[in-house]
């Protein structure tokens, strides 16, 4: 909107910019803090001002210690997190795109019911499912394995809903009919015609499940009991507990801060790089 040409609007825009500046500071403060904190050694962390650098620049030393502590278990957690999040996100994206396409462009018995149930499924609070899922999985000895985290993370009714909306808006039926005239198989039509058209929503769904699994705490906390299987969220909190119980004598707070920084950098980069895609995908779902 180019209304800002009228003179009365100018000061308002400036005021809005000032408010945005304050907002940016608010949202950035914890992130600035974590960057600064991870350059500090344990004594500096306690003695120097929180939002300014300490005496030394210890980020390299912290990183080295981070990946060495407990026989390099942090690296393990990092890999676990990437595997859990990556596999879950890929799987959920595949399931949601297939189901979204099936619901948007086919009629089959039970479809209407499934579509109205979808809204209900979105409303089911996720954490209410975690405890019974844990009990069920413990019957078949799947708890304390990576599958206990990955399989429940594949459930994403919201993403299916998003994909369905996107397909019905952006994949013309005539195109599918033309492909069928050419005697293309249904799976081939999906892969070669539909997938390229719905790529924005697939990226969105991928990123959102990636973040949800990367950030998940409750599910792995319940499912896993072995430190080697932990993702970063659970691992870091156990370190934090130790650091606090022993007042920073054995395990050090600087490992918790540096570990937190390393844990959030990959996702922030992913989001910045894929900005164009996820914004496009989001707008389709929120309109409905």
């Amino acid at each position, binding site marked *: *909107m180019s209304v*800002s040409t009228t003179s009365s609007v100018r000061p*308002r825009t400036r005021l*809005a*910019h000032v408010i*945005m500046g304050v*907002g*940016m500071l608010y*949202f950035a403060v*914890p992130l600035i*803090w974590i960057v600064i*904190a991870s350059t500090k050694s344990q004594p500096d962390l306690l003695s120097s001002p*929180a*939002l300014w650098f300490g005496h030394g620049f210890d980020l390299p030393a912290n990183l080295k210690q981070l990946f060495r502590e407990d026989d390099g278990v942090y690296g393990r957690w990092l890999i676990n997190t990437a595997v859990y999040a990556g596999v879950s996100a890929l799987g959920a994206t*595949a*399931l*949601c795109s*297939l*189901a979204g396409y*099936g*619901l948007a*462009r*086919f009629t*089959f*018995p*039970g479809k209407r*019911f*499934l579509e109205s149930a979808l809204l*209900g499924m979105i*409303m*089911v*609070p996720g*954490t*209410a*499912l975690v*405890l*019974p*899922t844990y009990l*069920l999985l413990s019957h078949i000895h799947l708890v304390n394995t990576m599958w206990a985290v990955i399989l429940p993370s*594949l459930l994403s009714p919201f993403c299916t809903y998003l994909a369905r909306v996107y397909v019905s808006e952006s994949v013309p039926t005539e195109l599918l009919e033309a492909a069928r005239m050419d005697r293309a198989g*249904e799976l081939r039509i999906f892969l070669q015609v539909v997938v390229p058209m719905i790529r924005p929503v697939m990226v969105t769904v991928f990123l959102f499940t990636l*973040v949800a699994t990367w*950030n998940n*705490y*409750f599910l792995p906390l*319940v499912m896993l009991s072995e430190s080697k299987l932990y993702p970063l*969220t659970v691992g*870091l*909190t156990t370190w934090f507990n130790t650091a*606090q119980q022993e007042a920073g004598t054995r395990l050090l707070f600087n490992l918790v801060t540096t570990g*937190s920084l390393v*844990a959030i950098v990959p996702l922030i980069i*992913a*989001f*910045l790089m894929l*900005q164009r895609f996820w*914004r496009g995908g*989001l707008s389709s779902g*929120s*309109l409905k």
Partner: protein
Amino acid sequence: MSVNVLPSRQAANAEMLPAQPRRTRRGSSFQARQSIAGALFVLPFLVIVILFLALPLGYALWLSLHSESLAFGSRFTGLDQYVHVFKDPEFRDGLWRVIRFGIVQIPIMLGLALVAALALDAIDSRIARLFRLIAFMPYAVPVVIGALMWGFLYSKTFGPFAGVGHLWGAGSLNFFGGHLLLISLGNVVTWAWTGYNMIVLYSALQGLPREMYEAAVVDGASPIQIAWHVKVPAIRQAISLAAIFTVIGTMQFFNEPAILARFAPDIDAGYTPNLYAYAQAFRFGSFNYSAATSFALGLTVFVLSYAYVFLTRRRAARA
């Protein structure tokens, strides 16, 4: 609604589609194949829904209707557990706390997100774009790490904020106790989710056709008038959807209090209903009671939000 009901319903379907009367046998077998293809596309998702949504819910329901005791083993006790849960002072305290929290925090957060989204929609400058990016960044930060960072920032040993109280001679502030505790938690949640909601609402605004408010611009309406009288009503659906997801999230409040509990001894096992359900299962080993607790909570949330969606949709359809 799985595959075994296919044949009978299919026949019905074929009858209901007599639109092309000259459809030969080949036509209806095409229909049948299409129908099977569609069902197959949905099948993998359906399997996951059955295994990880329907089955756990059913099992939780079963557990909540039974009691486990040494003397009798597992036996059916009907709604006894639920009566117990809703009478349990710890559960009620937690539920009431979460409701109070939501009544204050949700409108503040969504209000901020809406104002920010409207500002972003009206102003397209470099500062606005940078703001959009930075406000959204907390979404990519795990809630656990967000809560840890704020925990450090609030703490007297690590953080800069506890000393703020000295400015008006109040001594150092205790963010982990008294009235400030809920506010501290609210700040963590607001920090983490405002940007996300802002982006959702902003995307909805961007999807509006420009012609919608061109007339108002010509009539000399100010950007604020346009925002309030044209844009906000137009994205009402997106706003109420964001509100619902926020309410669902708030009722399940777990991560932030679980992390801040390490700083704040006031956060006990029953601080929120979800913390209570977790403690019941893993600290006291009473899975049946835990299932009843989380089922009672889930049911409350589900019924409320579903009713809300149903009502707002009906109203939207009528309007």
